[in-house]
């Protein structure tokens, strides 16, 4: 009898884990040094950076190609082709990191990954691969038909670029479905998330609450990112240029790239705000978690970085103005500096009184910001362009200071001692209306500087290739900071799931299910940024260095831009 009992016990011991192992699938792999979560984080973020570039660069490229065709300026065409060459190399890096991402995800979180793939089977098994293949074919076709479809056939080539962009956009929207689903899975009042999911269609899952805002944010983000990276490539090529002609071209390329990037960057804060708004609307607990609790200092750093980004953009603009002959003679209406000084306090008052989405705020702000442009001709008193820019810098610094002023310098707002809080009367500086006002002012100053630059080039002569050498470091800085911000905000978006893999649906039972410290995150974000930029630099050198030595027709003589 004892032998029978023992045999039964032994059978249970041996069989039980096997039965459950089959039910659960393979157990997870433990990644050494980094841990599973950080391993997934690093590879996922690298993949997103490459993907952002290969989805954003074609928008940048086709705009550039079209401008070249329209203006009959071969520089645009050359830039577009060069960026396409780099994009093609980075395309393979996107595929490599994408494959690695899936591999690590499956190894680290096999059960969740299986569940997730089941939720989006059609997307992962059919749509995404099919679109990726189509994109690959189009991308290579676009590059290899460049020299074939020129002259009269150029329109055909641009059309191919537009189709490529449409496919890129489609990919972005498709893959943002599962991504945003993890943060805001579909739900309905009074029904448990699990019950709702059981009845949800694929479209319900894809078109979740943060899907569209995330896609919008990523579209303008990708355009900006493509521009900043192109700017960095231009800086390296400028530094490596042997002739004045090459320097003139890469100076021009850096300039155009940055202004395309600025176009995207100006929209970024607003689409980002829309995304945050929708997330908070989905579940209000996201809001304090981001702004007042565990992630509050992440947003402090975000403010710091975006402040630096805008300062650098405008510093580049200043350096660009300085290389224009005759810039010192350019003047602007005195309304411009007056509005620059008034815009921050007025916007703060308006935002406090008529908070979004109250349209009354526009009734005050639009006339204010448009007044220098509409009424400027009526006022005879003028100031020099340089003075306007310098006042703009002071306003930007004050706005940055407002953005960076929190309720208190503590890691979590929930247990903030009174002695560390902003005293009453000052606390409006830490409010959301104040932050939004600071963002609006940063954008406004940048727009004023752009208008000013355009006015300057109409009255002066651009000396391409003669820009202060420090401008190249500004371009590198911009690429670094924009990549870093993407890494930071990527981490924030992912951390918003808190202790869930898919918010409120699949809990993360691992020991790594907690909010990491900002310092730890900063180390990894910096590591990811450096890795990405080193690879991009190498890709640019491989793709573009041979073209530098080729003899080109002179096309960079300093001529008044107004004539062109």
């Amino acid at each position, binding site marked *: 009898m004892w032998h029978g009992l023992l045999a039964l*016990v032994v059978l249970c011991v041996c069989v039980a*884990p096997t039965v459950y192992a089959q039910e*659960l699938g393979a157990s997870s792999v433990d990644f050494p040094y980094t841990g599973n979560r950080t391993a997934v984080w690093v590879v996922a973020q690298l993949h997103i950076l490459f993907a952002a570039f290969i989805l954003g660069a074609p928008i940048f490229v086709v705009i550039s190609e079209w401008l070249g065709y329209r203006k009959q300026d071969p520089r645009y065409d050359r830039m577009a082709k060069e960026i396409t060459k780099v994009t093609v190399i980075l395309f393979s890096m996107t595929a490599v990191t994408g494959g690695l991402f899936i591999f690590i995800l499956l190894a680290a979180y096999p059960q969740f990954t299986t569940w997730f793939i089941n939720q989006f089977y059609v997307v992962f098994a059919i749509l995404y691969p099919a679109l990726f293949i189509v994109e690959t074919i189009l991308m290579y076709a676009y590059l290899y038909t460049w020299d074939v479809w020129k002259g009269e056939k150029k329109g055909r080539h641009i059309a191919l670029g537009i189709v490529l962009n449409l496919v890129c956009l489609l990919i972005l929207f498709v893959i943002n479905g599962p991504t945003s689903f993890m943060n805001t899975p579909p739900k309905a009042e009074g029904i448990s998330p699990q019950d709702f999911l059981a009845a949800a269609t694929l479209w319900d899952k894809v078109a979740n609450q943060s899907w569209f805002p995330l896609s919008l944010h990523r579209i303008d983000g990708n355009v900006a990112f493509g521009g900043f990276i192109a700017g960095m490539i231009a800086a390296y090529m400028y*530094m490596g240029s042997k002739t004045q002609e090459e*320097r003139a071209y890469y100076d021009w390329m850096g300039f155009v790239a940055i202004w395309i990037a600025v176009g995207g960057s100006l929209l970024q804060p607003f689409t980002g705000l829309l995304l945050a708004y929708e997330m908070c609307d989905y579940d209000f607990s996201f809001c304090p978690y981001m702004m007042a609790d565990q992630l509050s*200092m992440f947003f402090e*750093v975000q403010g710091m970085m975006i402040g630096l980004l805008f300062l650098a953009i405008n510093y580049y603009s200043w350096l660009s103005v300085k290389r224009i002959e005759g810039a010192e003679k350019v003047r602007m209406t005195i309304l411009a500096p007056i509005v620059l000084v008034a815009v921050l306090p007025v916007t703060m008052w308006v935002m406090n009184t008529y908070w979004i989405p109250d349209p009354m705020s526009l009734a005050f702000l639009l006339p204010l910001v448009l007044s220098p442009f509409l009424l400027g001709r009526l006022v005879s008193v003028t100031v020099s362009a340089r003075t306007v820019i310098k006042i703009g810098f002071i306003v930007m610094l004050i706005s940055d200071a407002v953005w960076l002023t929190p309720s208190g310098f503590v890691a*979590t707002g929930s247990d903030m001692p009174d002695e560390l809080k902003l005293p009453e009367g000052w606390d409006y500086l830490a409010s959301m209306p104040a932050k939004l006002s600071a963002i609006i002012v940063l954008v406004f100053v940048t727009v004023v500087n752009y208008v000013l630059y355009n006015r300057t080039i109409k009255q002066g002569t651009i000396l391409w290739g003669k820009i202060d050498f420090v401008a190249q470091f500004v371009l590198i800085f911009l690429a670094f900071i924009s990549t870093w911000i993407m890494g930071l905000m990527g981490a924030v978006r992912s951390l918003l799931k808190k202790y869930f893999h898919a918010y409120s649906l699949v809990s993360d039972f691992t020991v790594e299910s907690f909010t990491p410290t900002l310092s730890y995150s900063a180390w990894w974000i910096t590591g990811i940024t450096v890795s990405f930029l080193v690879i991009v630099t190498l890709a640019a050198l491989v793709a573009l260095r041979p073209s530098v030595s080729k003899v080109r027709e002179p096309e960079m003589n300093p001529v008044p831009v107004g004539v062109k």
Partner: protein
Amino acid sequence: MFKKLGIALLVGGAVVTFAHSQEVPSDFQLLWAIFAMIGALVFMLLDAKPLTTMSGGKSFLAVVAFWIFIVTVCIAGASLLPQFDPEDEREKISKLLEKQRAASQQGKADELIARAKALDEQVKALEERLKGLGGSQVATATTTPPAGDKPPAGAGGGGGAAGDVMKVGEEQWQLQECYNCHKLRGEGGKKRGPELDNIGTLLTVEEIQQKIVDPKSFMAEGYDKEWQKGVMPDKFKDLMDPKEMLALATWLGTFKNTSVNTPKPIKKK
């Protein structure tokens, strides 16, 4: 350069002095003083002499040095700010997921594996005893479970003492992070939700529980916009079991501080 530095020191000093007189905490004074110095740096850069064109190795070294500088700024900037201690959250998450973990397949598997391991130990112990002891002793040994197999204290027990309920209620307040929106005992809250120190006078325990289950059932006076937007999440019924929710409602029901102006709840459903 010195002129700009002087102006920055003057502006920074004025801001710090004024902020100090208004009892603004020193961290903020430091932040604004740093901004004044950044201002000086920006203006020095604006008026700096153009950097001469570098080439070849010099450029490369300058770029590497510049990268090291940016990397240092990014890491140091983030590391100097106050850091959230993950241990605080780990404990909370572990408690929040305890039941789910036990109920999940993984939890069941872990439990079964643990039980199998315990049985394995028992078998080994039995084998040892069978080798050295007689049958009667073996029988005694097998009918008495080893100390490790004793059920955990309190498992299956009533645990209905009032103190325990209060403890569970307060714990749920912390775990569900209600303090992020509601002020209580002078702590937490950012005017996102009403202060609750007098909620026990205005609502019964059942009504508080109803509000947690269905946030639309009551609206705090003056919180019309928040109520309409559904600011209070309706997820808590999925995150707490009925016992925990009752404990939270019971604990909140004890707050009857009439000196605090808790807004009047208006029944909506």
